[in-house]
């Protein structure tokens, strides 16, 4: 029997999950911020449907550059930083995955990554191998690639 993405056996009463995959660097494209704001909108999506929508964000490829802390977009561009959006989401307990292999490729050490501990966040960005991102791709109900 073939099951559609919305008909996974045993999952009918669970929240729908959407995986937002961010593969572009910050500020050169609007897409990463659109992904993040779309993900945030999931928290109020149940105004429109009878289920909750669980967002998960995954940074892959050059998208991992969004996760570097101390962004100065306010100073240079006069706009709120992607960092601030990510911190807000961590403080909201949104699961956010960062591809370990891409961090290594760009020589970004974990200590350079954003955290929201100053905002009282209980979780950090979760550095995982791409195989874990793939598992999330298989688990989610919908995937949105930005």
């Amino acid at each position, binding site marked *: 029997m073939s099951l*559609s*993405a*919305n008909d996974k056996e045993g999952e009918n009463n669970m929240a*729908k999950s*959407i995986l937002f995959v961010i593969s*572009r660097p910050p500020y050169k*494209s*609007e*897409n990463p911020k*659109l992904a993040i*704001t*779309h993900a*945030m*909108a*999931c928290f*109020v*999506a*149940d*105004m*429109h*449907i009878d*289920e909750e*929508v669980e*967002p998960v964000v995954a940074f892959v490829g050059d998208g991992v550059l969004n996760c570097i802390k101390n962004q100065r977009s306010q100073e240079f561009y006069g706009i709120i930083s992607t960092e601030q959006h990510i911190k807000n989401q961590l403080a909201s307990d949104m699961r956010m995955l960062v591809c370990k292999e891409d961090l290594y490729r760009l020589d970004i050490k974990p200590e350079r990554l954003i955290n929201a501990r100053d905002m009282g966040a209980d979780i950090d960005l979760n550095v995982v191998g791409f195989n874990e991102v793939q598992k999330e791709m298989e688990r989610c*109900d*919908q*995937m*949105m*690639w*930005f």
Partner: protein
Amino acid sequence: MATISIGLFSSLIGSMNSDFAVKLAETAVNKGHSVNLWFSGNAVTLARKGQKSFKDYSYLAERLKALQENGVAIVACEACAAARGIHKDDVIEGIAVHSMDWYVARAAKSDRVLHIGGE
């Protein structure tokens, strides 16, 4: 038949992504599927009324109207539009303007979600 949500992020002019998204929506509707068409980022320019047809530029207003008549929900992102000076009075009649929660709710309930474009 399935419900398909198409998120478009490219502008009306500048690439053929918008033409492709509209063609995809037309094909899906013609096959009997239900379609949601979401304009976000620069794609909100597709919703602007008063577009003129030139031979060198994509012109999709009439095809969007036909999609609406065939039951496609066409919606532009409110924040993306307002940031570009496109307000509700500037939008083609029948195209709705909503915030992103509308789209992610529709997407969550869809059978398939396709994202196209983005600068």
